């Protein structure tokens, strides 16, 4: 359970006046450096892959949706590209313990990673960051994913479905090839799509699809490019009452240390410049200055 659950109201109590905590504000569990072995690499969403790697079981025991790992994306002995790349966990597997990441070749690091084959070894650091949290009384969850931003929302929706919550999962992509297959999500999840070119689902943005669900939802989650968050803010503002439901977003930043030491990954918030690898990458949309 997330550390911040201490603030959530447990079913059966009479006091409903306390504001549910919307994010786990600190990194949960100790981060570790370890070596993984690539187990499988499967194409998905056009040019992306699902990369599954082994993991020590101790790493999985505290893992929460929204957390990420910093992965070395070069051969041993090489210094380019130097810095590790952050990848949110798409799915965690128990037996044998493994982690799946969604990797789209975009730059040199991601292109290298997407070319790995089973048997190769990868340097890993994590789990890092805080996580999405599901307030115990939130039954109706609205999730919005843009492109590869869906990755942490897949892990989140798996958890929500396992807890018998009602999930509406909206995904936006440039075209049909960039969409997640419905089979990747749990059966009870209602899955809606939007494509820029109209090749599948709503022609336009995912944020246009979410309008009708804003007031239905107890909690909203979003992960995608930053312009999507600005649009989302504009779409939901007239539909919320007293800033409810709140929106948990996951922000993407280039990383150096991943542990809150270098301050290279900060997000500007109403509380100041916050390292997105410790008290992030999940933030309350109302606190982030975009």
């Amino acid at each position, binding site marked *: 359970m997330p550390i911040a659950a201490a603030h959530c109201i447990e079913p059966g109590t009479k006091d409903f006046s306390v504001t549910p905590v919307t994010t786990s504000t600190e990194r949960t569990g100790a981060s570790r450096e370890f070596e993984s072995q690539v187990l499988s690499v499967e194409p998905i969403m056009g040019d992306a892959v699902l990369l599954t790697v082994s993991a020590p079981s101790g790493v999985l025991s505290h893992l929460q949706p929204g957390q990420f790992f910093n992965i*070395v994306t070069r051969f041993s002995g090489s*210094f380019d590209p*130097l810095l590790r790349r952050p990848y949110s966990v798409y799915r965690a597997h128990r037996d044998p313990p493994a982690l799946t990441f969604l990797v789209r070749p975009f730059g040199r690091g991601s292109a290298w990673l997407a070319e790995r084959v089973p048997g190769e070894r990868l340097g890993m650091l994590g789990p890092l960051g805080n996580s999405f949290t599901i307030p115990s009384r939130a039954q109706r969850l609205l999730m919005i994913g843009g492109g590869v931003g869906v990755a942490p929302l897949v892990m989140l929706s798996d958890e929500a479905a396992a807890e018998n919550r009602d999930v509406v999962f909206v995904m936006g992509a440039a075209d049909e090839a960039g969409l997640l297959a419905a089979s990747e999500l749990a059966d009870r999840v209602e899955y809606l799509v939007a494509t820029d070119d109209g090749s599948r689902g709503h022609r336009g943005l995912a944020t246009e699809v979410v309008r009708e669900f804003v007031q239905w939802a107890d909690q909203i989650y979003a992960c995608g490019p930053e312009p999507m968050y600005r649009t989302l803010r504009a779409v939901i503002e007239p539909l919320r009452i007293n800033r409810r439901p709140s929106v948990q977003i996951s922000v993407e930043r280039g990383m*150096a240390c991943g542990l*809150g*030491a*270098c*301050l290279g990954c*900060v997000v500007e918030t109403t509380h100041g410049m916050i390292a997105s690898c410790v008290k992030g990458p999940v933030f309350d949309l109302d606190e982030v200055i975009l």
Partner: protein
Amino acid sequence: MTKADLSVDLAPANPHELRLQNPVIAASGCFGYGEEYAGVIDISRLGAFVSKGITPARRSGNPMPRIVESPAGMLNAIGLQNPGIHGFVKKYPPMWAKWTVPAIVNISAESVNDYAMMAGILDEQPAIAAIEINVSCPNVAHGGYCFGWDPDMSAEVTRAVRSATTLPIIVKLSPGASDIVSVAVAVEEAGADAISLINTLVGMAIDVRRRRPLLANHTGGVSGPAVKPIAVRMVYQVAAAVRVPVIGMGGIMGLNDALEFFLAGATAIQIGTGIFVDPGLPIRLIDDLAGWLDDEGFSSLEQIVGIANDGFRLGQRPMLADWESVGV
């Protein structure tokens, strides 16, 4: 099977001493205040760590982007985000008092008085093993010219800090100085117990798509393997010209890199960027160094310091090359 002695004394003339169990130090800006890495590596094994740079006032730092990758390295323009001297002393010395690893505080300021002010405050704190003075800062009284580029300005800062504290003082030199040896000699004369180098080089990267600098600050400090040859050369030159211990840093990613610095004349080393990509590096390096010394038949680290440097501690300015060998 005897294990080589890795211990080093970085302030032999200072009554406080700065004796470290080994020569591997985590560099400022790359290790936070120690707590960030405490769950990931066994920090008690480090020779010491240097905290993030502290300034007189609280600073929120630069806008993003603050970091950019560069060939075999990176640029950073964090902007010295830190709680300020008063916020710092409330939280960190009490925390460090419970640890065994020596903690060195890095200080940055824009006036001689501010350096002295912070040193005076730190002089009264528990659990601080030494002060590292970052002179790669603009001297506001002189048009923002960098202290570290001028021997006299660097000496003035060192003297002011020396007057304000009895703690061991390390002066961290800037590679931007046109003559880093003059700066090193000047700060030694002014009372530095040790000298560390190099700080980052000033660099830039441009986003070809947006046609703008990639860093919000435009320029940033270059670090990582790319800077190693420059760092080794400067350590070599400085270690010949001064007699105080020299602490070398710049792109150390493994044993061979570390050895280059020791052989050039460094008594200790700092690891900065290397820790980001390889948190296990400092501790692995300590073990690898001990193993190498044993294999090579050395009984202590001291025995290899400066042995590749003909001018080591001779107080001379070594001529690195003649025109013919340079190919001119």
